[in-house]
């Protein structure tokens, strides 16, 4: 089949360079993939308001990893937007948000866990799936452990902060087909938990798949 017969795919609009990876991560699943310096990872919120929890490690040395606090301090702002530089615990640029059709993304809300669910909702949630469970399953075969899990990015998640400091995960500002593009500034390993949370609005109370596209 020639390329001229392919249907146009609006979800790849604006991606320059050859697409070298294109997969769907099912609802509630994890995903680990290397992204080389200069490559762009596009995440597509296929059905809308699906939180994508994401951590970044330097491929050369995973003691260097994404730091929400270094990222926030360097840009003087809590929200991740187009142009935000995602920094490591050494203050170095790991990836940059080169484009997004969502106004802003979260990096203060962290990942859900069985343990934090017990506080936020009650002990009845004990047998529910959670992002930290995904992170551990993704980490252990790669030689990483709980010590490698730190404050993460929550793409497509909305955590406003009010004047008195009140904050919380509220209704999303994302929608079906919206995207975020992150370009690697160094060779990195990206670890994602496609959030399985069903007790707050971060996934519209219904976890859904997301699409991961890497372009050279």
């Amino acid at each position, binding site marked *: 089949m020639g390329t001229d017969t392919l249907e146009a795919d609006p979800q790849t609009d604006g991606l320059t360079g050859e697409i070298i990876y294109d997969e769907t991560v099912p609802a509630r699943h994890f995903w680990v993939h290397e992204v080389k310096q200069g490559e762009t990872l596009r995440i597509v919120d296929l059905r809308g308001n699906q939180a994508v929890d994401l951590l970044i490690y330097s491929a050369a040395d995973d003691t260097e990893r994404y730091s*929400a*606090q*270094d990222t*926030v*301090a360097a840009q*003087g*702002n809590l929200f991740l937007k187009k142009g935000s530089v995602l920094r490591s615990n050494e203050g170095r640029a790991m990836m940059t948000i080169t484009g997004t059709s969502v106004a802003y993304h979260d990096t*203060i809300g962290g990942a859900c866990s069985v343990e934090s669910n017990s*506080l*936020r909702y009650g002990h009845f949630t004990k047998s529910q799936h959670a992002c930290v469970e995904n992170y551990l399953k993704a980490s252990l075969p790669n030689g990483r452990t709980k010590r490698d899990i730190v404050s993460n990015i929550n793409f497509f998640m909305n955590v406003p902060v009010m004047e008195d400091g009140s904050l919380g995960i509220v209704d999303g500002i994302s929608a079906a087909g919206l995207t975020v593009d992150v370009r690697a500034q160094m060779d990195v390993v990206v670890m994602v938990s496609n959030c399985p949370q069903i007790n707050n609005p971060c996934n519209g109370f219904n976890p859904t798949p997301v699409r991961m596209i890497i372009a050279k």
Partner: protein
Amino acid sequence: MTEPQLADPIAAKEHARAMGSTVVENMPVLPPRADDLPDGVSQDDLIWEETIAPGGYAIRRLNRGARLRLIDLKGDACAGLQIFNAEMPTERLNVADTVKVQWNGYLGQAEGQGKLLLSDMGRVLMSFIADDAGTHDCFCGTSNEEGSSAKYGKGEKAGRYFLNGRDRFLLGVGKHGLSAKDVHPCINLFKGAIVEEDGAITPQIGPFDPGRQVILRAEMDLMLVIANCPHVLDPRDEWTVTPLRATAWRGSCTAHDDPVRNETPEGQRAFLNVEDYYRR
């Protein structure tokens, strides 16, 4: 140049020993002594008294129930904290859970602000039982070599070292037998960060009145690292930080009717998890 009287080991030993009683502004007091303990606290229960230098750090083990009082002696201290469960240090402070579970990004005594420092295992590591500072920071983290040298100059300048928080944390966790992967997002006490509606952060750097203090209660057996370095968003060109005093004393574990334990349903469940952990 070697002084001639230190040419032999005996002279060197005497020279070294003559320093032993030196007292400086920033140092630990052994055994601990403090003449300003709160009413009802016995000198016999004092377990730690130390003034942490500008750019300095301290490590400490505190048992469940111990109280830790930190005093910003001159109004420009910034206490960066790393907190671990002493018997299982993979359990550590989780700043994201601390703000998310308490539904508030600020730590303090005001209505709705967080009084608990939560671990990544759904438990309370420490709680605020007194705080007359009210300017603390969960968002900005600490300084590192990259940013600090860009701001203040590399390494040593005019005989001064511009020490950064990450470096202090690495040394501190190292002396607990831990390593780089154990350094986690921190909180800063005494320097604050106000968040505007658009997410912009306004640091609250002071300098503040001298003598502001915080008292934290250890809710589990803990290992701490405390670094006293300039806040990462300190706008001043000069590397500026003043001594931080740490005092700790023994205390009883949190009672079931404790008001901090019972202030919120989320906090109450975090204490239930602590109590469950120690039920053995």
